[in-house]
Each structure stands twice: as C-alpha cells, then as structure tokens.
C-alpha cells in the first residue's frame, strides 16, 4: 500500500456502505482527495442485502450501480477494501491514521472469470444471505461486487483448496503469500460511516429465534425475496421449505426495550409495511400478513404508504408487544401469545412464519472506537465540538432510514470539506 498519497488536505471516509460511499463521492465530486476504507471485500454495505426500498419499492442495487460507476469514474477516490482503522491520533486538520488491511489473497490481475471458485471444494455460510445459504471458499461476494474481484476465505489458506484455486487461475491473480498490512496515513478530516448491524435476535428469548426454525429476522426475510437469495426469491420457510403464506411481523424486536436496545430504530415499521407488500407480490389475496406493533412510525409524507397497506384487507394490525412464542409441535408453526391492548383482547395466533423486525445496533461498540468521539448511551456518535475533524455519517450518528442516512452523509462531507479547506487556506 506504499502508493497511497494522503495529506492533511485529504479526507478519510470510514465505511463503504451507502453513507460512506455518498460522503466520499460528494467530497470527491467537489474536488477533494478522498480515501474510502471498507472492512468487507467490497462496497455496498447493509443496503446491498435488501430486496427493495420503501416507500418506492425500487431496488437498492440500482442506486448502488450509479454510486459504483461514480467511484470508477472518479480519480479523486481511493478505495481500500478489507481495511479497518486501528488507530487515530492528532487533531482537526492533521490526523495520523493507522490502517490494517487483511489479505484478500487475490490481486488486481483478477478478471472475475470464476475459474478459482470452480476449482475450490470447501463451502461456507454465505454472509450475503446472513448464513441462509452457502458459498465457495473462493468467491465473489455478490453479483454486484465492487471491486469486481474474487476473495479467498482465510479458512482455506493452507488447505489443498488454496493451491487448487491458485493453479486454476490463468492470470496469476492468486497470491497465497499475501499478509496483513499496516499503513499509516495523514488526513485532515475523517467521516465515520461504519453503519449498523441487526440486533442479535437470539437475545430476544421470548420469541425463540434460537429455538424455532420458523422465526426469522427482517433482514433474512429480505434475502428470501431476492432472486439471488437462498430460495431464489420464493417465500419458503426454514423448517420444511413450504411456502409461508400466513406471516406475522413483530415490531420493536429488540428496539424500544430496556432489555435490548432502548432506542427506536426508526426503519422497522416501514420495513415491515414494505414486507407485507412482498407477501402480496407473491400470493396476491391468498397471502396474509399480521403486524404486531406498539406505534406505527411511518413518518412524514410516507405515511400514505402506511395508509395504503392499511387499506389492504390481507394485512391486519394488532397493537401489542407479543408476550412470547411457542411452537406447535405437530406442524412447527409458531404460536404467538399476547394481548391486543386496543380494548383488551387476548390472542393465541398461529402463523406459518414469524419475521422479527430487528433493531439497529451501531456496528462499532461504544468502547471500541479507535479515536475519541462523544458517543451517547445508545452507541451513536453525537455531534460535538470536541470531536474535532471527525464527523459521523448515516447510522453511526443515529438510527436512520436510507434517505436520511444519505442526507447525513452529504452533510458530513461538507463538514469535512470545511476542515480541509481551512487547512488549504482556500476558504476565501
């Protein structure tokens, strides 16, 4: 990585999800030098695993294609994948940052021809599908992967598979001797966009995610609809691969709950409303969706999306935090127990499949930031003078939907630009 040119007029963007890409691109298209680091093998982040966006029901890959082209076309952006920030020191206008790059075992010669994957035997859980499917030990993380370069799973290094892959490659693209590299760079400002992860559903014990096959999470449900997903786009339930037609959506699964995440994750209501349209998309009037909620938070003008879903007679709303789930031993159907608090009705409802609308947890645990920033009790970075030239973007700053995350990222790009412009003395 010797060829990285970075100065205190350079902006470092940490995280290659939609927020990080946006911040990097807005700054670069303005004319700044940007280094974009992503710890995974490619950019795209959380949204690249979604089937559709609310409320437009368009496909995230569409915007991803545009953003990836923007990166390809823009000489100001230097993308470093499989890279993490390990240390940050210095102050606004002059940070020295240590980066750790894990070996990809594949170099730029890779043409993404796929011969290595064919040669490799070993299979592992597919991260792209939250482990619902398998992928090879040499793999292209997704069809949209950028950089369009294969990766070798470190677990095959030292096994015959590794050599098989190397031999299969005609372009000398596989380098089994790659080592972890550490790089030190100087930058003037940092945009922190490490995003979020789904809350660990195993911790929501009353819902038995760890005990019942047919209780899954909302992010997993997105993969079921995806044509590249583990079921090729069919709504098949895990226990028996049968079509799930009567689906329960449980809101605030891990959010607004002192036992889990105290904050409201904002996106989950809209996500579940959106997912009821998936059920309709697949089954028409034969599908049945039931949403168990505390408050439906379909904010501002997208409230009309909620109104439309409400008008759909295949969708039922029950104001209730489900008390617990038990499994019908005969058919493995989850049975939901609780009370509808709008007029006290006790229910015991059986469904084919339960989708937990899991909450948004900041990817970086409060204690683990490699730099000093003000973090609130929920783990989000607060806007604060003392953060100096470090600015949070997207879901590092708050639980945000995609639109607001990109807004936040655009704003953080300006804040970073203000810093490096001061450094450059070009502020007027």
């Amino acid at each position: 990585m010797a060829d990285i040119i970075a100065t205190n007029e350079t902006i470092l963007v940490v995280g290659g999800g939609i927020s990080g890409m946006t911040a990097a691109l807005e700054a670069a298209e303005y004319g700044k030098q940007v280094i974009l680091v992503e710890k995974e093998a490619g950019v795209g982040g959380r949204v690249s695993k979604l089937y559709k966006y609310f409320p437009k029901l368009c496909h995230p890959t569409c915007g991803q294609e545009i953003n990836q082209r923007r990166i390809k076309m823009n000489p100001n952006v230097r993308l470093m994948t499989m890279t993490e920030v390990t240390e940050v020191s210095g102050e606004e206008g002059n940070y020295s940052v240590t980066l750790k790059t894990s070996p990809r075992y594949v170099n730029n010669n890779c043409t993404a021809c796929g011969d290595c994957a064919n040669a490799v035997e070993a299979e592992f859980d597919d991260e792209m599908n939250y482990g619902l499917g398998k992928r090879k030990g040499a793999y292209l993380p997704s069809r949209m992967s950028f950089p369009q370069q294969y990766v070798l799973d470190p677990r095959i290094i030292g096994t015959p598979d590794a050599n098989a892959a190397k031999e299969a490659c005609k372009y000398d693209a596989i380098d089994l001797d790659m080592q972890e590299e550490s790089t030190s760079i100087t930058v003037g400002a940092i945009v922190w966009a490490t995003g979020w992860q789904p809350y660990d559903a195993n911790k929501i014990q009353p819902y038995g995610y760890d005990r019942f096959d047919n209780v899954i999470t909302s992010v997993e449900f997105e993969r079921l609809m995806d044509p590249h997903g583990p079921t090729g786009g069919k709504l098949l339930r895990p226990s028996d691969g049968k079509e799930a037609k009567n689906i329960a959506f449980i809101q605030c699964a891990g959010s607004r709950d002192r036992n889990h995440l105290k904050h409201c994750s904002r996106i989950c209501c809209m996500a579940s409303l959106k997912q009821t349209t998936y059920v309709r998309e697949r089954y028409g009037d034969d599908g049945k969706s039931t949403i168990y909620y505390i408050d439906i938070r379909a904010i501002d003008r997208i409230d009309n999306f909620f109104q439309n879903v409400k008008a759909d007679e295949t969708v039922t709303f029950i104001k209730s935090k489900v008390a617990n789930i038990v499994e019908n031993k005969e058919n493995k159907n989850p049975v939901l127990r609780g009370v509808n608090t709008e007029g006290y009705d006790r229910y015991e409802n059986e469904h084919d499949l339960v989708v937990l609308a899991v909450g948004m947890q900041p990817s970086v645990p409060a204690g683990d930031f490699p730099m000093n920033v003000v973090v609130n009790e929920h783990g989000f970075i607060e806007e604060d003078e003392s953060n100096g030239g470090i600015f949070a973007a997207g879901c590092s700053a708050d639980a945000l939907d995609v639109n607001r995350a990109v807004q936040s990222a655009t704003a953080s790009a300006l804040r970073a630009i203000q810093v490096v412009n001061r450094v450059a003395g070009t502020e007027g």
Partner: protein
Amino acid sequence: MSNLNQTMVEKYRNDFLNEVRANVEEGDWVNMCMQCGVCAGSCPLGPYWEHPPQEIFMMIRAGKREEVLTSTSMWMCTSCYNCIARCPRELPITHIMHGLAHYADRLGLAPKEQPTRKFANKFWDNLTKKGRVNELKLGLALYFMNGFMEGIKVAMANQKLGLNMIKTKRMNPMEIIGGHGVKDTSGLHAILKKAREIELAKAEEFKG
C-alpha cells in the same frame, strides 16, 4: 365509605394518578407505561384479570379510581415476575400490583370476599405474630377463612393432603401450641410499627 377513603378522595379530588404516586408502592412508575401489553400477555393468570396491568395503568391515568381500587385484578398476581422481566419500560409491575392491592385494602375498597385478599392478610398476621410463619395455623386459618362450616368442608377436602404432610413430617400437629418464632418479638413489632408510621408520613408529604 371508610374515613381514610373519604380523606383521600377529598385530598386528591380527581387526580388519581397523583394519589397512586403518593400512596402506592412504586406508584411513580405508572406513567412510564407505553401500552404495549406485554405484561398482560405474560401473566400466568392472565385470563382471570378483569383489567390487565397495562389497562389498569391506563385507567389510573384516566382517573377511574373506583373501578381500579375495587377490582379483583391486582389480587390475581402470583408474583411470578414474568411481567417485570419482559416489560420494555422497566416497570416493577408486580410491586405496583401488590401496592395497589394493599392500598385498596387499606381504604376498605378491596372486594371483601376476594380469597387472596383474605389469605394475604392471614399470612401477614400469622407471620408478624411471632416473626415466622406457622404453616399449620395458617393452613387452618385458610380453611376457615370463609366461615366455620365452609372451613370444615375445605378441611375435609384437604384431609388427605394434610395427612400426607404429617406422615412425611412436613407438617407438625404440635405447632398448634407454640410453634416456631423469633426470640425478639417485641423488637420485631417495634420495627414494623415504626416502618408503618414512616410510610404514612411520607404519603402525607407527597407533592406531585
């Protein structure tokens, strides 16, 4: 209407929420409920609740004093702590239910014939008398709490149970005379008396 009840009605007029906050164990928490109903769904005796906890909280906010305090609902609590464990807002629901029951009983509004109300009182009297529970007397008291004839019936119904317990040395007929207790009963009673006084004084001072 009991004098105490009279005073309270006058003192809080129609601000039942504040009356609860002042006089009921953990009553301050009532307002933190967000009506998710997880408590109602989690209670083992749920189906027997005329008004489940979260509804009671709503009724308190709505000022339904009479309906709440005369309800049998709070007396359904088995102290299983399911509601507390699951409440997303950290409400000590079990304690609030105990507190409401206690307050209702103090005011003389609790349903006289509610069996748990009777038993809970017997239990308290039994344990405070000597500082330790006398299971035999408690058992008998329980049988006879609905009057002598009723008591005989219940006792007969439970005869086998009683004999079993005696046979396995898990009940001692001799407990009827003397039985277990603490040595320093006077000290214990002094403590309880003082605690009571402090509690009432505190409720007096409450200022929203």
